[in-house]
């Protein structure tokens, strides 16, 4: 395969900073960046403030272009106007097994920059805001966006990640147990596997999650062990506030969810302990069968049974002792 970085070095000496920034922005968002490309970009950005400015401008330009295209009638054969008209009557999505309820509560609007609407307008006459901004995602989920909403979609092989940078969006999530569907709003995360819920931005770091059907796990920043499970009709606002200055906390990429966590969906302590014991050398022993029947909700680090046990002790007022390398919980 031809070495790819050749395309990014300026062919003519007169190539402007803006031109280079455009090519980097396009490659970052729509191309594939090898590690050496990342390094080359970092160096270029670090070299000159104007490079950083031009790059920010180019990335903003990409958003403008995307919004313009998204707001216009689609040109792809797979997203055609006929499909849009039929969407309200389709019942083919059997795997939801949920009634597609009258979406009275779904926000309708246009997720586009109003200043770049492509339809021709008589001078002086305000453009009417168009109706539903609904997006079919590649996994079969459907996102409905408020007029000022902006989302980034990243459907990987292990997780399905949506980032909500503005506004409000409602998601009908296609069932896929092998790939958790996670919506991130600021520093708030909302995860589901097959459900209907909406997320809206709150301030810079927060989010409001409302669940229409099914269950959604919600947590903020690094506190996945304190995740809350919301059920249909439930609503939660989390606003963690500004993060600590970057110098104090090393940025940690989040580990892939299904490897790092055990998610407990109102299960018995006995079955929860069993799950921990399957993956840890340090075993959890529940001394009282009555305690084993109590239930727990939450998202815990899979390799930290002590943390789980502390949570249990706090919630169910239990005693914790060690027996060899095992941890024993019993009622007080």
């Amino acid at each position, binding site marked *: 395969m031809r070495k790819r970085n050749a395309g990014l070095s300026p062919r003519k000496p007169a190539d402007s900073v803006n031109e280079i920034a455009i090519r980097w922005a396009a490659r970052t968002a729509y191309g594939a960046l090898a590690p050496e490309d990342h390094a080359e970009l970092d160096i270029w950005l670090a070299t000159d403030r104007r490079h950083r*400015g031009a790059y*920010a401008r180019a990335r903003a330009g990409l958003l403008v272009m995307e919004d313009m295209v998204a707001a216009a009638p689609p040109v792809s054969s797979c997203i055609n106007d006929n499909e849009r008209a039929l969407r309200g009557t389709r019942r083919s999505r059997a795997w939801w097994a949920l009634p597609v309820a009258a979406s009275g509560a779904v926000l309708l609007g246009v997720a586009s920059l109003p200043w770049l609407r492509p339809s021709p307008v008589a001078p002086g006459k305000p*453009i009417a805001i168009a109706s539903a901004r609904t997006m*079919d*995602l590649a996994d079969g989920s459907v996102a409905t966006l408020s007029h000022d909403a902006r989302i980034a979609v990243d459907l990987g092989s292990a997780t399905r990640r949506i980032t909500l940078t503005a506004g409000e969006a409602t998601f009908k999530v296609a069932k896929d147990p092998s790939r958790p569907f996670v919506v991130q709003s600021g520093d708030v995360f909302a995860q589901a596997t097959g459900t209907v819920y909406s997320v809206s931005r709150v301030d810079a770091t927060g989010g409001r999650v409302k669940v229409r059907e099914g269950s959604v796990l919600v947590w903020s920043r690094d506190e996945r062990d304190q995740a809350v499970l919301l059920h249909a009709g439930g609503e939660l606002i989390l606003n963690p506030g500004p993060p600590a200055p970057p110098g104090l906390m090393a940025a940690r990429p989040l580990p892939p969810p299904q490897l790092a966590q055990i998610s407990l969906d109102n299960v018995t302590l006995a079955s929860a302990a069993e799950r921990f014991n399957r993956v840890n050398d340090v075993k959890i022993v529940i001394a009282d069968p009555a305690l084993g029947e109590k239930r727990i909700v939450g998202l815990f680090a899979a390799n930290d049974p002590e943390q789980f046990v502390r949570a249990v002790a706090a919630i169910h007022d239990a005693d914790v002792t060690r027996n060899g390398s095992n941890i024993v919980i019993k009622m007080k």
Partner: protein
Amino acid sequence: MNEQQDRVTAWIAREIVPHEGAVRGWLLRQWRDAIDVDDVIQECYCRIIELGSIAHIANGRAYFFRSAQSIAIDIARRRKTANIVAMTESEWLDVMDEEPLQDRALEACQSLERVNGLLSQLTLTCRQVIELRRVEGLSQRETARRLGVSENVVENHIVRGLRKILNAIASQDADADEEEERRIVPPQTR
């Protein structure tokens, strides 16, 4: 790019980019050859993307103009080639317009479309790529496969489209259009 920068970039796309044409035109009229407008604009964007948060900025247009002016002064001062004239209050009012945000945005939109017919300048492939990637969430490889082209081709169409968009943004100057109108159509006959 991290989430915070994504957020700021989204804000820039909404609140700053629509005014770039006006800021450029104004810089050219104010400063003529004393400064390189591209330099000033790039420095503006650099300062904004470096902000931790943009929540404190109520008026992006005003912020853009003020930043541009202060940067231009710095550059001209370093070059010692221009007489630096401080903006008077009335000149600032001419530049800042008090119309509600929505109306300004609509005017900018209409002007851009009228002058450029921008959407039609994007290639069909470019629009398809954007729809498949951003609207449907396909990966780069899936997009290329679906369209039956190589991944390089996908990227090239985006580069060309982005170049057209940014050029249009840079050359859109609503204030200059108005000035021209005033010259061509004398006030008493309007």
